[in-house]
């Protein structure tokens, strides 16, 4: 029962399944995974993220989030100082002191993440032991987990993967005979979760849970009856950890655009034995709405060329959506990391001959980008304004992680994220 066949009739004459990928090493202009805290702390409302790292780590997070004025931020950094490095103070004692100080200030916190960083990894501070020690100390009130947010290991959105994976081992185990349950994995905007839930219910799939939950104590049980549907492409370790506990993964592309969303929902429908008529009825109205909104966006985007710098691992599904549903030309699709298995269906749907790259040498990639002079460049904020000033139109990539883009009713919004810079450039030029 752990293998579910993929039923969606995606006609792909090969696509990019076996396409060669340019692998590059050099300067990576990407975020480190600590950035994930910025959205995760808003998703899990009673969780706190304590980074154990340097002043650089603290500076990174506040530079990204500090434009919001917080009465009470739900993240902080325990800054390692020279005493810790020289071994003059016992790092574990220090950490306990900091955590106690923090929990005294924030008694309402139910889940505390100790987040590792490059410095804490390099000096081999054992945060997993610290987490279990502190968990035992605060057993009745707070669970303490740990994951690595270090930039030497991973990139940007992989922070969510590491965070969610760290939550898996403490999830309760479902009854062996428990009914099948659908578990949607990956942070989604609340409104998107609600939409998906309605559609699943209309199909007759009643038992649907989301992971991560909105509150830490809302613990979903995992077992052989659990069917995983990944909502985000960057969750390799989380998926593996959940599968190791008996859950089975439903293979699907990612729910971006009409095609992606339909296939994604279909994957669940097949696993839960939903009749074709019922599936069609559930998706008919939202599909029609999405089609209408995409047709407007297509006027701006069709035939335009686009170049993706690596950022979030969302690049391939986005490129698939933009090329197949909006008619954009893909010049290069860069991704920080390519997980072939999770991306298999997405790759199959990419136009044949798409130039794929994994990793980065930012200067060489900029050279390629300038030579091609695309109509639109998807890149990080470190590159966006400089490229704009060179006359290129950019779409800053991080916004795609902070915006509701999944599902039918967001397909138009997703397309609009790409039309907006083009429209703006036209309007300001006029």
């Amino acid at each position, binding site marked *: 029962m752990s293998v579910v066949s993929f039923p969606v009739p995606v006609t792909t004459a090969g696509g990019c399944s076996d396409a060669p990928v340019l692998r590059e090493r*050099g*300067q*990576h*202009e990407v*975020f*480190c*995974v*600590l950035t994930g805290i910025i959205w995760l702390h808003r998703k899990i409302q009673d969780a706190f993220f304590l980074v154990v790292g*340097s*002043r*650089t780590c*603290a*500076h*990174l997070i*506040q*530079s*990204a989030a*500090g*434009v919001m*004025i*917080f*009465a*009470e*931020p739900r993240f*902080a*950094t*325990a*800054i390692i*100082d*020279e005493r*810790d*490095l020289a071994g003059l103070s016992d*790092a574990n004692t*220090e950490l306990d*002191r*900091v955590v106690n*100080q*923090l929990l*005294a*200030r924030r*008694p*309402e916190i139910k889940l505390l993440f100790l987040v590792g960083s*490059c*410095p804490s*990894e*390099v*000096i081999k501070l054992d945060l997993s032991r610290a987490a279990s020690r502190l968990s035992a100390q605060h057993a009745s009130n707070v669970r303490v987990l740990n994951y690595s947010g*270090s*930039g*030497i*290991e991973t*990139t940007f959105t992989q922070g969510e993967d590491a965070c969610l994976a760290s939550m898996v081992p403490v999830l309760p185990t479902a009854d062996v005979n428990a009914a099948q349950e659908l578990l949607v994995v990956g942070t989604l905007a609340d409104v998107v979760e609600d939409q998906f839930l309605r559609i699943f219910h209309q199909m007759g799939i009643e038992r649907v849970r989301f992971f991560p939950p909105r509150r830490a104590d809302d613990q979903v049980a995992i077992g052989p009856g659990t069917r995983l549907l990944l909502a985000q492409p960057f969750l390799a370790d989380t998926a593996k950890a959940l599968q190791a506990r008996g859950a089975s993964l439903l293979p699907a592309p990612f729910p971006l655009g009409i095609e992606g969303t339909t296939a994604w929902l279909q994957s669940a429908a097949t696993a839960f034995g939903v009749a074709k008529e019922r599936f069609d009825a559930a998706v008919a109205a939202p599909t029609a709405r999405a089609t209408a909104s995409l047709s407007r966006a297509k006027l701006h985007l069709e035939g335009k060329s686009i170049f993706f710098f690596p950022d979030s691992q969302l690049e391939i599904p986005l490129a698939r959506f933009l090329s197949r549903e909006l008619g954009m030309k893909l010049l290069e699709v860069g991704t920080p990391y390519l997980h072939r298995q999770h991306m298999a269906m997405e790759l199959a749907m990419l136009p044949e001959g798409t130039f794929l790259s994994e990793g980065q040498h930012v*200067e060489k990639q900029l050279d390629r980008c300038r030579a091609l002079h695309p109509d639109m460049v998807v890149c990080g*904020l*470190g*590159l966006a*304004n*400089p490229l*704009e*000033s060179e006359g290129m139109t950019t779409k800053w990539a991080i916004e795609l992680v902070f915006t509701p883009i999944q599902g039918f009713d967001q397909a138009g919004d997703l397309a609009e994220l790409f039309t907006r810079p083009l429209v703006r450039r036209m309007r300001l030029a006029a």
Partner: protein
Amino acid sequence: MQLTLWTYEGPPHVGAMRIATAMEDVHYVLHAPQGDTYADLLFTMIERLQKRPPVTYTTFQARDLGGDTAELFKTAAREAFERFSPKAMLVGASCTAELIQDDPGGLCKALNLPVPVVALELPSYQRKENWGASETFYQLVRNLALPADQIEKTQSSKPRCNILGPAALGFRHRDDLTEIRKLLTDMGVEINVVAPLSATPADLARLADAQFNVVLYPEIANLSAQWLQRQFGQAFTKTIPIGTTATRNFVREVAQLAGLDPEVALSKAESRAAWYARSVDSTYLTNKRVFVFGDATHAVAAAKVAAEEMGFTVVGIGTYSREFAREVREAAKLYGVEALISDDYLEIEARIAELNPELVLGTQMERHIAKRLGVPCAVISAPVHVQDFPARYSPQMGFEGANVLFDTWVHPLMMGLEEHLIGMFRGDSEFHEDAAPSHLGGGVHVQTAQAASAVATFASTSTSASASTPVPEQINAPALNQGASQTNASILIAAWDAGAEKELKKIPFFVRGKARRNTEKYAIERGVTLITTETLYESKAYYSQS
């Protein structure tokens, strides 16, 4: 380890980036792990620069740690030189690279590049951003400035100076520079070199072609100015021209160094701020209680303006710049307060809660604190966010700077008429005592007296069940300072009877906290256990006399 909700300064290599990015033809090769490129965003997003910072990162990863990270660094340095052909290079390490000890300076020497290479030693676990900027600028000046006899001197009858300090990501450096440059030029002083902002290595080479230096930001330029004084005998200015009075003093100081008559320049000086502060509309600003925090330079200057030019009462002053603690302590003496020298956000929060000011002049971080406590706040110093790199001309320095300060600081305060009417009539559905000032769009103040009183009561709430003031759950910052305040724990706090509590509510929110505190202090000192309306007024009369 230090628990840090917000940090006032970045790591020292960010300071080095601020120098490299401010300058032209300088490239910085930074040994750093993947992800440290976030710092580029400070410049491209917060300061909205149109170019990428001239920084190459080695972005090593975990798998490189087993291999040759030194070779990785050499490759990055060689490629950066070939691609960008800088006239001088900076090389250094970020915090993680410091741990693996690859010695970027030595490695780069081996490359034998045909330009000056300045190796930076920036101890990330001891020092911070401003120190990093200061050290980097100093190293560049030391390595590049030529002695007077090796440069071609400009033949000019006018006195010449350098302007030192303006950098990338500096709070209003762009407009301060414009303002001061104009002020100096109008006085008849020629500008030799402005550095680091927009200076090239060649510009640094001819620093000696000036009689004196104007230091705008000591945090960045003092070290270099001192070296230039020792090396080339260039005196440098000590007055920071923030505020009308300070600007006038600055003009006098410059005139003296340049051998000019200051009165000519001063007679033309125009400051609307001075008149605005004298006009009767500003009378209600008298004795408003203000807390000042920021880098040392801005904090000291702002406190002076607040006290002498706005008529505020400075109830607290502090800085996160430990290097300049002495200056801030000196300034604190002027106002009879104790300086707070700390970069611990929680400590500053506790102090503000305790002092219960009516206005906070601080950094982006104090905006978080002020929001939590419901106190009006204006920004006077870095760290700042994108809204404080404005498009419009908005210097802090010079006479126009004084005008900007007046507008910025008065804006968050409730305007006079509204303040009067709220003091007279209560219970209005729209203009009530807990509403934010209507010229700011209204909304509800989180604060109120409870926030401040929590400081006084928290120590006793655990020991005294009779304390009638419920401490709101979100106000528990002072709990972190338990050590400091624990001494009061044995004192039972006076309880408020219902009538007194109601009477207290009639005091406008921005002074209510102080009234509550004074009354409680008054009651405790006299052994009164239950505060009545009478006690409230007795205390009011007592404190208004003293």
